[in-house]
């Protein structure tokens, strides 16, 4: 799915910068290009500039520098109401003094669409989100999930090609959120619309998107499909931000094409895959996903490196066991093992040996 999108860009950010106070850049040199029909998520901690990017695209903020293009046209100077971009807001922003049907009809009215046409479109949009019988209600009479659907229907009713969503599921409880994630992605693919979705919830980003742009400090740290992002993070921030991650610190001793030798701070030597380290002597952060750590070292074969570890804590989580170990002097090393029939439950205080394949162990920039 990742690289199948068409090559001609539908949404484009070219060297975009944004500053509110003339002193600090909130968005630093943003370059992004999205093909038509893609579901792209902007993910990042708060203050990382992702919402600002969305607002610039919607037209509520102006770029301090650079150009934003929609379907090949620069849109920097086009006011928001002429951009024809649908938008779903964080708190839905349903107009409280209008009924659901009036809310949906609003974008059609301002486009001077005839009454019968309007009614048909409103009905279709309501049916699309399975809210057909709620047209006469006021937003305040609906539950959070229902409001969310209406907000979605309103952003889609005038058939925009691009829809922006600003943390639309933030206010829902976990179960409803998961359900809505599924519905939104389905709808987006079904209608073939292009979606830019902003969230700070990484699970949401991973499950919904074609590609995820991880934002930090006003820059895109990595732009990749979810699997690539999780398995091949390009820097320490992404590795830490996406999923659970174990880090070990050390120095590069040898560096090759596919493998490098890292001396950990307690003197142990291990093999790792060099990602963004350049030369011998550099400080590096080793990143290993908890589920890639093997307790049964015999399974790994002779290429794998093994380390001694002490079990600190065993946590039973149902489908998996989460065990905290002390490795190379650090006592926050987490491993995850599947709750399979033959899996032994480790006891605190036990001395064990752990290991992993060198390709699962990535040498990243030092934090």
């Amino acid at each position, binding site marked *: 799915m990742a690289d199948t999108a068409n090559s001609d860009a539908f949404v484009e950010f070219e060297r975009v910068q944004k500053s509110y106070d003339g002193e600090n850049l909130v968005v630093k040199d943003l370059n992004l290009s999205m093909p038509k029909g893609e579901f792209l998520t902007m993910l990042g901690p708060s203050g990382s500039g992702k919402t600002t990017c969305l607002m610039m695209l919607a037209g509520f903020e102006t770029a301090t520098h650079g150009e934003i293009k929609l379907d090949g046209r620069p849109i920097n100077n086009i006011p928001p109401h002429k951009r024809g971009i649908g938008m779903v807001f964080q708190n839905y922003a349903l107009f409280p003094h209008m009924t659901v049907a009036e809310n949906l009809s609003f974008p059609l009215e301002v486009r001077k669409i005839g009454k019968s046409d309007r009614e048909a479109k409103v009905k279709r949009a309501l049916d699309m989100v399975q809210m057909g019988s709620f047209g006469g209600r006021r937003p305040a009479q609906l539950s959070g999930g229902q409001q969310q659907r209406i907000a979605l229907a*309103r952003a889609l009713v005038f058939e925009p090609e691009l829809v922006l969503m600003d943390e639309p599921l933030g206010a829902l409880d976990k179960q409803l959120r998961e359900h809505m994630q599924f519905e939104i992605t389905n709808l987006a693919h079904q209608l073939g619309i292009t979606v830019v979705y902003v969230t700070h919830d990484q699970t949401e980003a991973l499950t919904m998107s074609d590609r995820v742009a991880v934002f930090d400090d006003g820059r895109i740290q990595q732009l990749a499909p979810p699997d690539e992002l999780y398995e091949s993070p390009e820097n320490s921030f992404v590795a830490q931000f996406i999923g659970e991650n174990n880090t070990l610190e050390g120095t590069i001793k040898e560096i090759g094409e596919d493998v490098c030798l890292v001396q950990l701070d307690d003197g142990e030597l291990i093999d790792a895959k060099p990602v963004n380290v350049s030369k011998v002597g550099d400080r590096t952060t080793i990143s290993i996903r908890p589920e890639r750590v093997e307790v049964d070292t015999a399974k790994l074969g002779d290429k794998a490196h093994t380390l001694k570890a002490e079990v600190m804590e065993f946590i039973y989580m149902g489908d998996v066991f989460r065990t905290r170990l002390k490795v190379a002097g650090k006592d926050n090393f987490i491993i995850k093992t599947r709750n399979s029939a033959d899996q032994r439950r480790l006891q605190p205080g036990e001395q064990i040996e752990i290991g992993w394949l060198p390709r699962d162990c990535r040498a990243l920039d030092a934090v």
Partner: protein
Amino acid sequence: MSVTTDTGPVLSADGKPLKRSLNKALRAQKLRALALIAPLLIFVLVTFIAPIADMLFRSVENQIVSNTMPRTTAELAEWDSDTSELPGDNVFEALYTDIFLAAEAKKHTRLGSRLNYEQPGVSSMFRSTGRNVDEIGEDQIKALEDLNGAWEDETFWFTLMTGGDGAEGNPSLLKQQAASLSNLTESVYPADIGFVPGQAISDLLPQTASAYTSFALFSAVDNGDVVAEEEPWAAVKLALIQDLRSGVDLSSYSGPGAAELAEAQDLATSLPPVDFKAGFIDIDEEWADAENWTTIKMYSPDFTSGYFLNAVDYQKTPDGFAPRPEDEQIYNTLFQRTLFMSLMIMGSCILLGYPIAYLLANLPMRTANLLMILVLLPFWTSLLVRTSAWKVMLQQQGVINDTLVWLGLIDEAGRLVMINNQFGTIVAMTHILLPFMILPMYSVMSTIPQTYVRAAKSLGATNWTAFWRVYFPQSVPGIGAGSILVFILAIGYYITPEIVGGTTGTFISNRIAYHISSSLNWGLAAALGSILLVAVLVLYWAYDKIVGIDNVKLG
């Protein structure tokens, strides 16, 4: 764990006991809440609600006529005012007794002022009558006194009226007279005043006994004298002459002064009857005017609609009510003007306040706070100072006119009249009441998130459409709250129209104040106030019906 032992059985009944215990728990909460508001509630009830209710009650209260002239009003009930003939001698005789007592108690002028509101000229009629009422029948009294010196002797009178030591008393007469007299004098009469009328003499000479008892009460309590040491009023002596002339049979009477009474009866029957009617007309010929009597009769009931009729430019006539003469109609105009000007002030406050409130609600906090201080600044200045400042600004030799003349926009002769008229009042009051419009608007607008307008724009609405279709409807509750506040404040405003209103820019409240403090016609003031109160309540009700009071938010 099972349910605790004591709730187990009670719950099993049918759930009712549960309710009872819930009520018990809630009662404590309610009592606590009541205790918290009690000080304010009592304060408001005692110092505000009760006086206002009392004041409004004055708009229908009219006991002054029947309290001051109880006998006359009773006799007048028989009189038909349509005949345009004067009432009979019995009425004038009752009037003599009433006026005499009222004049002694110095209450006749009060009644005169009251009736003067309804019939100009009555006031002076009562004043001169009170002064000269003892001229009536004075030659007959003189004849009585010449007949026997005992009739000028206070001890003789006292003995005669008590019936001597050990005689049977008539305390019920004393009680009855005390009740009637306290209506007039508003004094409290104790049961023991050192005098009780004798039963025998009050049966024999009822009028005299009543008159003497009133005299005794008044002397003992209001003047603080000893009854036995005071010579009775001329009215008592005249009552005696009237009693004797009516042909009482003295033969069976053997009490004190029997001989003097028999002697006096001979004199009384030989004299011509006292002509009370002529006597009153002699004192003031206004008494010969049947219209004055019509007025007295019309206002003799304890409650009257007269004040309210007056307050809407109507008056009472013998056949119901009719509009006042056109040159006396002012209140309808004043009410209409008050309403119109309050609406104008409200409207201009909305127009001027809305943009400010919008700005306040949408500016960054720091700037908004500064602006808010500017909005609140007028609150820190005395109302009088602000109003006077407008006087300085707007008067013909004032700042604005001077500037316009200096700029050459108007010439010296064409200076604008901007004060002491409606324009001045509207300008000054708009300025004064503006914060009351801005604050509720601001507090409502600050709860409207920016995202609504953004959402509207993202859906394709222009700035204006987004404002008008999305922002404005949500700010209407603020406008409603501000409007009610400003309108109700404006409709009862007093100081500013008083200072800058001149004659054409005054409100109904100025007229109410005039009646309270200058003309002292509190009944009319109360009626005008009641109408104003009802008008505000009706408008409030209408507002609730049209806009819905739930739509009024103060934040």
